[in-house]
């Protein structure tokens, strides 16, 4: 079925991860910074599944499963923090969030 070489998937994964890093550095909005983290996680998931496929082992898929679960938990807590930040600072720009205490 899959005649596409595994290395293609790995390259795509690397490119996506790189773009995620670029987005993480470039973005100024807290929410979009958060989104770039999700992009990086997705890129890594692709690599995991490609390797799982290559070695015909389930562990890669199990890891992806856990990554998705943890990402869901992380999104819930992270977005709650974002909402709190927005309430206290009236802004979502990362540059305004420059002190540890309100």
């Amino acid at each position, binding site marked *: 079925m*899959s005649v*596409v070489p*595994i290395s293609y998937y790995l390259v795509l994964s690397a490119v996506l991860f790189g773009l*995620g890093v670029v987005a993480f550095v470039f973005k100024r909005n807290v929410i979009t910074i958060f*989104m770039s983290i999700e992009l990086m996680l997705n890129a890594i998931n*692709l690599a995991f599944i490609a390797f799982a*496929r290559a070695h015909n082992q389930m562990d890669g*898929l199990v890891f992806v499963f856990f990554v998705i679960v943890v*990402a869901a938990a992380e999104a*819930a807590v992270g977005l709650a923090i974002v909402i709190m930040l927005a309430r206290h600072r009236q802004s979502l720009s990362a540059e305004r969030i420059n002190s540890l205490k309100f």
Partner: protein
Amino acid sequence: MNLPFILFFICALLAVLGAVLLIIAREPIHAALSLILVMIALAVLYLLLGAEFIAAVQILVYAGAIMVLFVTVIMVLNAEAEERTDFSKIAKWVGLPLGFVLLFAIAHWLYRAHVGPVVASGAGIPAHALSTWDLSTELFRHYLFPFEATSFLILIAVLGAMILARRDE
């Protein structure tokens, strides 16, 4: 050229396009939409790799729950377009090219990585190897403890989110 190749290139293109749009987009909602595009393209790639279950979970959890949460938060906070500032000179002329060099270096290494010639070409892999049945067996036999631990993690996350987002009475 056969069907899997065509599908792979379409999805890869869409995924990269989505990621680039995520960087370019000024409106947070547009960024969220492009990220959803990436996730759907990746789900199709997972299908191509034979990981049906993960593909479904990817759309169900990532695109259907996490990103909905993002979109909702953006709408609640009415997040306006991002402000842009100019790059510093150094960042523009040195940082950006170096970043791209790094990106392509990683891609190059991965492409030539020693995953073994058999594995790299995709030959010799059984067709329906990654069945949902095997995955569940693995998950509930070897990884039972981590699986149970994630349920606590989610419980804690729910409580944490509630406490954080609650308005003070």
